């Protein structure tokens, strides 16, 4: 009876709580304490390492620059059937004119040109030239308008026409005089400015554009709103301080000539209404605004299909284009295609990186195996002394070893001098062993050799010599005993060392840069080139992502074979 009762009641800890509960509480406390100790470092590494790398990887697909700088054009081009129509229609040209004008004023057009130049060489100069020429059509129209009435030359005229002075206490949709205002226009132009400059500007929701003027002159109102926001927020100036934006005249002429606006213009009232109506009559005598012609005049590139095709192709906010470029392909209207032969270098470079890393790994195995064997089989005293010869290079600065190899391998370097002195090579026929693949392979084998020897050594140390002796006593020859008994046991060391050396080799930058010349460089050097010289950061990020993927797969394999916990240093 008694034993049954005790088995039904739960075991109790000293303080009276059930043992199970008490144990799990103490386990939880242990876990929390461990996490508490790890947390500072984990947060630090996440913040300063993992997030930056994630951010970089994100850049390899990020492509919002086109839609940020030319938002209207991108929208207009969506309707362009590039397969059938040779050129986009007037709306695209119109959108491009105003987009490019705003971009030129914000000095952003060259960035877009540089971005598209990665895809289509030559576009950069078209954008650069357009940035200057885009002011001209507006300037000419400004003269026409000022001939009609000099008042058009003043910013105040436009302010009186559009700027519904507002009162924050008043209803947002009506201005102080009870005129209806259009606040959404201001907000949409604010978004356009923020997108273009990558800023976070804010203006009060109550600020608006006179609604009747916005209905009569929609394009002008839009550009006026943008002009005001840009000048006030970006330049910290008032629009009355400078000249009226040239694009406004183009928009105004377009609006005044547009028959759809005629009714709204006629119903316009207020101080500027008569000026607008007279100007409308005068301007309608002029030839109709033709954006296709205007853009063709700005730069002849805009009359050609290629520039539009490039914009349309690369207008999406996220793109796989950089990854395609990274493997020598490119986006076309018919889907991914192979790059022209002159631009095919990256796949080659990947291949070379892998090939040379393999050669380096194999050389390290061949040179490292005898040394590791010797160190593991000599008496401890001797092997400790010889170990210094392995550890000293390991601990010596990478730059020192690289400079040492530069000294050794140069045309006038130590190796060549010795060979010439020995008469093995003629003085005018010195060996070319630097600034090519031989240089990279020699120097990197030397630099990475300790990383091969050390893991091999630690594995070989654990192989009992009695196995080989037993094999020999059973009649195995030296070779058989080595190949069938010793070597299989040393394979984990070879595997660990090889993966380590390969991982390190494939991402090397410094040594190939210094002793590799042009045909001994790795993919890392190309990444550095795109980061610091060509500024094609998207492509650099894509190349980096591919390299990182390869390294992570190898690292995973290393973890499976050796285990991260078993990594030993020194």
């Amino acid at each position, binding site marked *: 009876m008694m034993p049954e009762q005790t088995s039904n009641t739960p075991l109790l800890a000293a303080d009276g709580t059930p043992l199970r509960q008490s144990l799990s509480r103490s*386990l939880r406390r*242990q*876990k929390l*304490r*461990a*996490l*508490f100790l*790890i947390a*500072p470092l*984990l947060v*630090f*590494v*996440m913040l*300063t390492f993992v997030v*930056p*790398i994630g*951010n*970089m990887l994100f*850049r390899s697909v990020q492509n919002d620059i086109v839609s940020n700088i030319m938002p209207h054009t991108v929208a207009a081009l969506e309707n362009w059937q590039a397969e059938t129509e040779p050129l986009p229609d007037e709306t695209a040209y119109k959108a491009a004119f105003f987009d490019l004008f705003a971009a030129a004023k914000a000095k952003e057009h060259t960035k877009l040109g540089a971005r598209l130049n990665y895809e289509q060489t030559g576009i950069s100069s078209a954008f650069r030239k357009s940035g200057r020429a885009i002011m001209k059509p507006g300037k000419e129209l400004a003269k026409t308008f000022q001939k009609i009435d000099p008042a058009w030359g003043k910013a105040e005229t436009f302010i009186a026409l559009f700027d519904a002075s507002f009162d924050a206490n008043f209803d947002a949709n009506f201005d102080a005089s009870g005129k209806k205002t259009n606040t959404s226009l201001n907000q949409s132009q604010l978004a356009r400015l923020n997108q273009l400059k990558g800023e976070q500007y804010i203006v009060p929701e109550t600020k608006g554009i006179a609604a009747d003027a916005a209905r009569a002159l929609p394009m002008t109102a839009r550009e006026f709103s943008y002009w005001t926001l840009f000048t006030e927020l970006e330049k910290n100036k008032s629009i009355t301080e400078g000249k009226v934006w040239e694009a406004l005249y183009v928009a105004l002429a377009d609006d005044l000539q547009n028959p759809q606006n005629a009714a709204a213009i006629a119903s316009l009232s207020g101080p500027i209404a008569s000026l607008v109506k007279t100007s409308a009559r005068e301007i309608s005598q002029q030839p109709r605004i033709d954006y296709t012609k205007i853009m063709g005049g700005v730069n002849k590139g805009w009359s050609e299909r290629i520039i539009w095709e490039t914009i349309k192709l690369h207008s999406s906010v996220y793109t796989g284009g950089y990854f395609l470029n990274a493997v020598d392909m490119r986006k076309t209207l018919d889907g991914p295609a192979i790059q022209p032969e002159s631009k095919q270098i990256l796949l080659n470079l990947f291949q070379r990186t892998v090939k040379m890393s393999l050669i380096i790994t194999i050389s390290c195995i061949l040179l490292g195996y005898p*040394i590791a064997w*010797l160190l593991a*089989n000599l008496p401890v005293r001797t092997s400790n002394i010889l170990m210094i*010869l392995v550890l*000293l*290079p390991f*601990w*010596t*600065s*990478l*730059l*020192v*070893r690289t*400079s*040492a190899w*530069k*000294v*050794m391998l*140069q045309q*006038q370097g*130590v190796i060549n*001098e010795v060979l010439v002195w*020995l008469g*093995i090579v003629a003085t005018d026929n010195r060996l070319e062993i630097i600034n090519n693949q031989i240089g990279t392979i020699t120097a990197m084998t*030397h630099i990475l050799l300790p990383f091969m020897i050390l893991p091999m050594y630690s594995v070989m140390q654990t192989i009992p010599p009695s196995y080989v002796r037993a094999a020999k006593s059973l009649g195995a020859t030296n070779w058989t005993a080595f190949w069938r008994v010793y070597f299989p046991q040393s394979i984990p060391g070879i595997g660990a060392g090889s993966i380590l050396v390969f*991982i390190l080799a494939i*991402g090397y*930058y410094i040594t190939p840069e*210094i002793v590799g010349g042009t045909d001994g460089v790795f993919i*890392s050097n190309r*990444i*550095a080139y795109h980061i610091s010289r060509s500024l094609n*950061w998207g492509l650099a990020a894509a190349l*980096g992502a591919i390299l*990182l993927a390869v*390294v992570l797969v190898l*690292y995973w394999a290393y973890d499976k074979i050796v285990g991260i*916990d078993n990594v*030993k*240093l*020194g």
Partner: protein
Amino acid sequence: MMAATTPISRKPLSFVLPIMGAVGLLVGLLIGTSNGISGMGALIGVVIFTAICVIAIRAPLNEKGVRWFITAAFFLAGWGLNNIALGLLGGFIGAFTGWFIFWLYEGRYRAKLLPYLTPAQVFWHYSFRVICGAIFIFLISPIIVVMPLSFNAQDFFTFTEKMLALDPAGYSLKHYADFLGIRDDSNGEWIRSFWNSLIIAPLATLISVSLGTLAAIGLSQSHVPAKRIIMAILISPMIVPLIISATGMFFFYATMGNFMELQLGLNKDLVGYIKVILAHAVLGIPFVIITVTATLVGFDRSLTQAAASMGAGPVTTFFKVQMPLIFPGVISGGLFAFITSFDEVVVVMFIGSASQKTLPWQMFLGLREQISPTILAVATILVALSIALLTTLELLRRRSERLRGMSPA
């Protein structure tokens, strides 16, 4: 290998002579080729070496006398031919030749080998040693060669005639003076970058060691949730190729630097140092984690329990019991972190500005752009530094073993 157990016996001349002849052939061929008479040189070499061999063995002198005689003869021959340097080389070759003749003749090469080895196995044994020697030379020679070159009186990267002749005029300390910035034409860039390295590396090490040790202690507890993932994240700075880390940090730290300059109003140089120090601290963390966790694997948990049972608080236990035992691991992790920062060039080039130029950066520029022999002086100093580091590590390892030996298993 087994201890020396094999009885040795004298070998006949028919064994020693052909080998010495072959050595003579090789030496003669080398010297002959450098003078443009390969065939003749080889012949002379064979004759001289076999003659020396016969004389040495049949001479009425004892072994020591003969070896001294050969050494002196080679030394004088070298000196007479050219200069004292060649004389020294000759003396070295002579000493080796004398030793080699008797090593073969007396059968000493057999002494330390197992008695049952066949001649082929003996030959392989020594060939293997020669191969290993060659690999060791490959490992160490670039580092050795740099040292004498750093004392070159000329701005060359190779040995001059005067240096080879051991002429004191061929040597000078001018590259060291340039490094220290005390030569007339030196611009002080080297010593400035050296100071930069000495500012950045210790601070980065401090961060990685303090955070890393704490985390390693946390990781070594018995119940850590998601241990593998945490470990992978903490080790990742060592795994990710530097160029990728540098690229990622380039974008991130540019934004962070702008924030600190514009929003916090910090000095531009200070921000630069903070960026580089933080980046280097991250790169050093895996080394601290690995070495400290390795030390903690052998840590006897009952020691902390004993301390706790005697009334010590967790902080006292940590500093009085745990810390002294894992101290060697912490220090060697710190040394790794230090050397990582001290030797790092890719990241600092990407995120630092000219005022944070470190020594490796200056060396990189020196190697890629204006090649200056001062690099060799710097290299020599750095090699000396790494020898000091290596010694420290070895002492620490011994201390750690001693401490572990004392603690109950």
